[in-house]
C-alpha cells in the first residue's frame, strides 16, 4: 500500500517523562547552536498525560538540569515532601513504624516533591510545543520502519477505522509513515516496539532478564483533618508473604487528595495470587484505612514497572535509533523511583543525537556514544549503588533482604564488592496451581474495597469497540489447554482490568474470553503469561485509559 509520509530530524515515540525531556533538550541545543531541527513526539494516549501513571515522588535532579528555572516556568511541583514514614505491616490489623535510622537511605525523600506525573508531563509538553516540537497525541506508533540495510528509518502510525475483523470501515484512515534520521523509543515499561527492537538487534545480550512489578493505584479525596500535604507513607510486609516482593505507598498530594497504590513484583510464584485483590485488602490495614475512612475514591489505574535495575539495562543504541526511559528500564528499585532516571536518559539521548549531528550524517547510524554517556552519568552511579537491593529481596525475602539492604546502603553505601544476579525471567516463576494455597480475599465492601469492573470504570478507559483485538494470542489453544489445568489461567487474576475471563460456551466447554476494551495498557499480560503467548499491540490511537492527575 502507498502510504503518506512525513520526515523529521528526530521522531520520539511516547510523550512521557523520557520522551518529552528528550524533545525539550533537542530544541534547547538547537536554539543555543542556532540550528534548525524538526522534532516530532507521537503518543498513543488521547492527550498527553492520559496514559501516565506514577506514584509519584519526584526527585527533581533531571528537571533541574533541563529547566533550572522550572519554578518560574510554573512546573506543577507543588507539594514538597514534609515527612517520611515506613511501616512494616505484620497482619491485617497491625503494623510497626520503622524508626528513621533503620530505613535504607535511598528511601529518604527530603528535597523531593509529591506530584502528579501526568500533570508534569502536560507541563513538559507545553514547554516542548513552545519550543517548536510537534506533539501528536491520539496516534499510536504501531510498527518500526526499516531501511533496506535493516537500520531504523522511523515508525508507522496505526490504521484508524478498522473493524473487528480487520476490514476497512467507511471512516478508515491508513497509518502514516513518520520518518526520521534517528528515532527515540520512549514507550515506557515493556514498550511493544522496544520489545521487538531488543529482539531484532539482540540488545539484551549479556544482561539479566528485565524484572517487573505491577503497580495499582487509586486517588482518594479524604477528610481535610486527616490530610497532611507532603506526607509520604510506605509499607512492606502484609498482605504479601515474605517470599513475594512488593509494598504499598500513600502520598498526601494537594487539595485533600491522597495517591495510594500497591506494587507486586511479577516474579510471584502462586498462580492464585491476584495483585488487584492484594491492593484492595491492603487498604484494610488501619495504617492505611484510617486515612481513607470518610473519604471517596476518585480514580483508578494500573501500570507495570521495570525493576531489574543495573543488571537488566540493555544496550541503548541500534542503527537509526535509541532507547530511553523505562523502555530500557532505569527505575531505581531502592528509591522506588524512575521518573528522574527516565528524564535523565531522555536528556542523554537528545545530547547524543545532537552531538553526532555536528560531525556528519546520522540517518540510520548507530549512535553508540549513548551507552558511554549512560555509564558516565549519575543514573548509572545510583543504579550501581543499589544493584543488590532487588536481588537481595528476591534471595532472602522481604525482611532479611530489607536488613541486608540497610547494611548495604547505610553502612557500605552500595560499595560491597559483588553483584548479585536474578536470571529467572518473571514468566518462569509460577508453581502449579495444585501446589499453592488459595488466598482468602475478602469480598469488596464498596467502602474501602471494590471489584475490578467498578475500578476500571474510574480509569475512564475507552476503546473504539469495533476494532481488531489488540491482545494477540500466538497459540489460541494455550489458555484453555495448558494454562487452565496447570495454573488455573492466571491471566484472570493478574490482569488488573478484568480483560481476561474463562467462561463457558453454549456446550459448557471452557473458553478464553478477551475483553480488550477494558485494557488499561499496563502490559502485565505480555510480561507474566507463562507461555509468553500474549502479545500486546497498539489498539487504535486515542484508546485506553484517560487518566487525569495520575
Amino acid at each position, binding site marked *: 500500500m502507498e502510504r503518506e509520509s512525513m520526515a523529521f530530524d528526530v521522531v520520539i515515540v511516547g510523550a512521557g517523562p523520557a520522551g518529552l525531556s528528550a524533545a525539550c533538550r533537542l530544541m534547547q541545543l538547537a536554539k543555543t547552536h542556532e540550528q534548525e531541527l524538526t522534532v516530532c513526539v507521537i503518543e498513543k494516549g488521547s492527550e498527553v498525560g492520559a496514559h501516565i501513571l506514577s506514584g509519584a515522588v519526584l526527585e527533581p535532579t533531571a528537571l533541574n538540569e533541563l529547566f533550572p528555572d522550572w519554578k518560574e516556568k510554573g512546573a506543577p511541583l507543588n507539594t514538597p515532601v514534609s515527612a517520611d514514614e515506613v511501616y512494616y505491616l505484620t497482619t491485617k490489623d497491625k503494623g510497626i513504624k520503622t524508626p528513621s535510622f533503620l530505613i535504607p537511605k535511598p528511601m529518604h525523600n527530603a528535597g523531593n516533591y509529591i506530584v502528579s506525573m*501526568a500533570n508534569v508531563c502536560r507541563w513538559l509538553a507545553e514547554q516542548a510545543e513552545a519550543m517548536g516540537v510537534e506533539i501528536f497525541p491520539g496516534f499510536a506508533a504501531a510498527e518500526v520502519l526499516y531501511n533496506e540495510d535493516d537500520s531504523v528509518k522511523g515508525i508507522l502510525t496505526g490504521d484508524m477505522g478498522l473493524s473487528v475483523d480487520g476490514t476497512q470501515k467507511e471512516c478508515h484512515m491508513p497509518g502514516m509513515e513518520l520518518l526520521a534520521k534517528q528515532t527515540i523509543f520512549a514507550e515506557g515499561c515493556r514498550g511493544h516496539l522496544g520489545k521487538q527492537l531488543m529482539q531484532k538487534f539482540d540488545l539484551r545480550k549479556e544482561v539479566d532478564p528485565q524484572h517487573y512489578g505491577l503497580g495499582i493505584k487509586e486517588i482518594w479525596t479524604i477528610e481535610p483533618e486527616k490530610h497532611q500535604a507532603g506526607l509520604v507513607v510506605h509499607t512492606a510486609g502484609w498482605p504479601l508473604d515474605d517470599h513475594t516482593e512488593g509494598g504499598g505507598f500513600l502520598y498526601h498530594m494537594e487539595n485533600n487528595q491522597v495517591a495510594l497504590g500497591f506494587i507486586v513484583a511479577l516474579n510471584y510464584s502462586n498462580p492464585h495470587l491476584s495483585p488487584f485483590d492484594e491492593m484492595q485488602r491492603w487498604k484494610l490495614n488501619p495504617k492505611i484505612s484510617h486515612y481513607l475512612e470518610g473519604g471517596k475514591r*476518585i480514580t483508578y489505574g494500573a501500570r507495570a514497572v521495570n525493576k531489574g535495575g543495573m543488571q537488566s539495562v540493555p544496550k541503548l543504541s541500534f542503527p537509526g535509533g535509541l532507547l530511553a526511559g523505562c523502555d530500557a528500564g532505569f527505575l531505581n528499585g531502592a528509591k522506588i523511583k524512575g521518573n528522574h532516571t527516565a528524564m535523565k536518559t531522555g536528556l542523554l539521548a537528545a545530547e547524543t543525537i545532537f552531538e553526532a549531528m555536528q560531525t556528519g550524517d546520522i540517518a540510520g547510524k548507530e549512535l553508540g556514544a549513548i551507552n558511554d554517556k549512560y555509564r558516565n552519568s549519575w543514573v548509572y552511579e545510583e543504579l550501581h549503588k543499589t544493584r543488590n537491593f532487588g536481588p537481595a529481596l528476591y534471595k532472602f525475602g522481604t525482611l532479611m533482604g530489607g536488613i541486608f539492604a540497610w547494611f548495604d546502603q547505610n553502612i557500605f553505601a552500595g560499595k560491597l564488592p559483588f553483584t548479585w544476579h536474578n536470571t529467572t525471567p518473571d514468566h518462569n516463576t509460577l508453581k502449579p496451581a495444585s501446589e499453592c494455597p488459595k488466598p482468602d480475599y475478602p469480598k469488596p465492601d464498596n467502602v474501602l474495597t471494590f471489584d475490578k469492573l467498578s475500578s476500571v470504570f474510574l480509569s475512564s478507559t475507552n476503546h473504539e469497540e469495533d476494532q481488531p483485538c489488540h491482545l494477540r494470542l500466538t497459540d489460541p489453544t494455550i489458555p484453555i489447554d495448558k494454562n487452565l489445568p496447570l495454573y488455573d489461567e492466571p491471566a484472570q487474576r493478574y490482569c488488573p482490568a478484568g480483560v481476561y475471563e474463562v467462561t463457558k460456551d453454549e456446550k459448557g466447554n471452557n473458553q478464553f474470553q478477551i475483553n480488550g476494551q477494558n485494557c488499561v495498557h499496563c502490559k502485565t499480560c505480555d510480561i507474566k503469561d507463562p507461555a509468553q503467548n500474549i502479545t500486546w499491540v497498539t489498539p487504535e490511537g486515542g484508546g485506553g485509559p484517560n487518566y*487525569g*492527575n495520575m
Partner: protein
Amino acid sequence: MKILVGVKRVVDFNVRIQVKADGSGVATEGVKMSMNPFDEIAVEEALRLKEAGKAEEVIAITIGPKASQEQLRTALAMGADRAIHVETDEDVQPLTAARILKAITDKEEPKIVMLGKQAIDDDNNQTAQMLAALANWPQATFASKIDVDGDSANVTREIDAGLETLSIDLPAVISTDLRLNEPRYVKLPDIMKAKRKPIETFTIAELGIEPAAAVKVLKTSAPAARQAGIKVASVDELVAALKEKGLI
C-alpha cells in the same frame, strides 16, 4: 456561501464525572476536555457540504476560556478554514451564547449556522433555538440528514414519532443529531497545517453584549447511589416483598 459552526469545550465523554466536594459544580481541573461530540458532527457536516461544492468557507467559533482554542484547532485540523474565539472565563448560559452567535452572524453573514443539538456538559439544548429566534431565521433542529439546494435546504429531523423532513429557506440555523454522520479522523499533516490557520479573538464586551445570567445554579450533586437488590426464592416471596414496599 459560508457556514458558521459552533464548537464547545466540554469534559470528554469518556471521563467519569466527579462533583466538587463543595457542590459548586463539576470538577474540571486535571480532567480531559474535548470538543462536544454533537459539535464534531456539525463540523463534519459543514466540511462535507464544502467538499460537495455547496459551501465555500467553513468558520468554526467557540466561546470559552483560552484553552478552548484547542478545540478550535481540532476543528481547523478536521478542515475548517478559519476560526473565531470569543474569550471568556465566565460561565456562559445559552441565551448569552445565542446573543454572541447572533453578533458574529451579523458580521460574517453565513448562510447556515450549524450547531450541535446540545452540549454534553449541561445538556441544555437551547442555543440553536434561541439563535434562530434572535435572528428571526428558520430553524431545523436534531438533523439526521441535510440536503442543501441553492437557497433552501431539506432537513430530516429525528422526532419522537420518527422522522420529519422540513424544507427551509436559507439563511437558517441547523442543529445536528447523532446519526447525521460519523466524524472523520484527523490526519497528522492537517494538525500541523491547523497550527498556521488564523484564529480571530474577541471579548464579549467587544461584541457589545451584556451576559445574561438568567439561571443561577444553586447546587450540584451526584445522583444517589443505587441500593443493593435482594434475592427472593419464589414468586410468593416476590409478591410479598413488592406488597410490603407498597408497589402492588
